């Protein structure tokens, strides 16, 4: 039976798609048969981040409407074995996804996949609710910034009341993924720290992804950033996947780059 993971945040632009791509790729690299589903109907972007935008023929909505079979719509990743992508439709019809349609597709995928990673659209409206409705596990992507933290808390409220698990009296497993983290600014008191966000949202921390040039570079090239094993962000995602799978790894990239001796001595006083 497949585990359904939703990557969600409430707020837009915090790194949901970047994280979905990295998480899906990371799980596949560990040998799990994984499918990435783009739930952002109308604005399809996961295919671009995964570098398969020119191979999209059929999409999620085509499968729901039975205009194509699942096998026709699934794109097999060329770099990573065991990884498939189900792209979003670019239709302007906001009601293109139905709860029954989504359930049927997820059930069919669950027969042959280990992990189903759902990349949620921003907001807390229908699209985002559909993306999280069937989830067993939620990865809440948050930036250390007030509006993102607030929206994450709101999406946690939706997970706890409007998901299928909640309706059945169970709970969706929640993980915090803190992205675009800048340790230097945290130390200077200009950015919420990881402990602050953890304290406010009160959910377990899966990982901290540092603000990194590697992320833009990776998206420029259509390669998930986790493939860039030399980069800080790539390593941080790799750690997060290991933790997700139960490994105990220490959090890295929480401290600013080494400074000179003098500034370290004086810097500590603040």
């Amino acid at each position, binding site marked *: 039976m497949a585990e359904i993971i939703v990557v969600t945040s409430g707020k837009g632009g915090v790194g949901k798609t970047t994280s979905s791509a990295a998480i899906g790729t990371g799980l596949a690299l560990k040998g799990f048969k994984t499918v990435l589903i783009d739930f952002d109907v109308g604005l399809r972007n996961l295919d671009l981040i995964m570098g398969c935008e020119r191979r999209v023929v059929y999409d999620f909505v085509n499968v729901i409407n039975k205009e194509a079979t699942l096998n026709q719509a699934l794109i097999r990743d060329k770099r990573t074995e065991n990884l498939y992508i189900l792209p979003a439709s670019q239709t302007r019809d906001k009601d293109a996804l139905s709860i029954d349609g989504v359930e049927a597709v997820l059930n069919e995928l669950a027969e042959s996949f280990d992990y189903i990673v759902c990349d949620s659209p921003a907001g807390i409206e229908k699209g985002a609710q559909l993306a999280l409705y069937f989830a067993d596990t939620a990865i809440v992507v948050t930036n250390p910034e007030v509006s993102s933290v607030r929206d994450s808390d709101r999406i946690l409220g939706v997970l706890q*009341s409007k998901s299928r698990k909640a309706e059945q009296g169970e709970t969706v497993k929640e993980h915090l993924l803190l992205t675009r983290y800048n340790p230097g600014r945290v130390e200077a008191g200009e950015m919420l720290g990881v402990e602050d966000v953890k304290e406010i949202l009160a959910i377990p921390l899966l990982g901290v992804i540092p603000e990194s040039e590697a992320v833009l570079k990776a998206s420029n090239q259509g390669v998930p950033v986790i493939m860039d094993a030399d980069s800080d962000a790539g390593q941080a995602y790799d750690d997060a996947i290991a933790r997700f799978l139960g490994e105990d790894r220490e959090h890295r990239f929480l401290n600013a780059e080494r400074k000179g001796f003098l500034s370290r001595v004086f*810097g500590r006083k603040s």
Partner: protein
Amino acid sequence: MGILSYFRSKKQTSASVAKERLQVLVAYERSQRTQPDYLPQMQQEILAVIAKYVDVSTNDIQINLDEDCSILELNVTLPEKS
């Protein structure tokens, strides 16, 4: 950083302001989330009844319902006798 931040540190940092604002806001929004839908209207109606007899305003009434709906707590601040 360094010496400069030593002097600056007496003032509250913007991050700690952010944290305080979030803590207040998130606590409030969570309490709103868990209350049943009928609570605001019930509050209005109870207030209307009280207002028939005493001079109170919306801000003077507070209703809390604990999570499993077993205790209804009603606080009404009555005006001081003048």
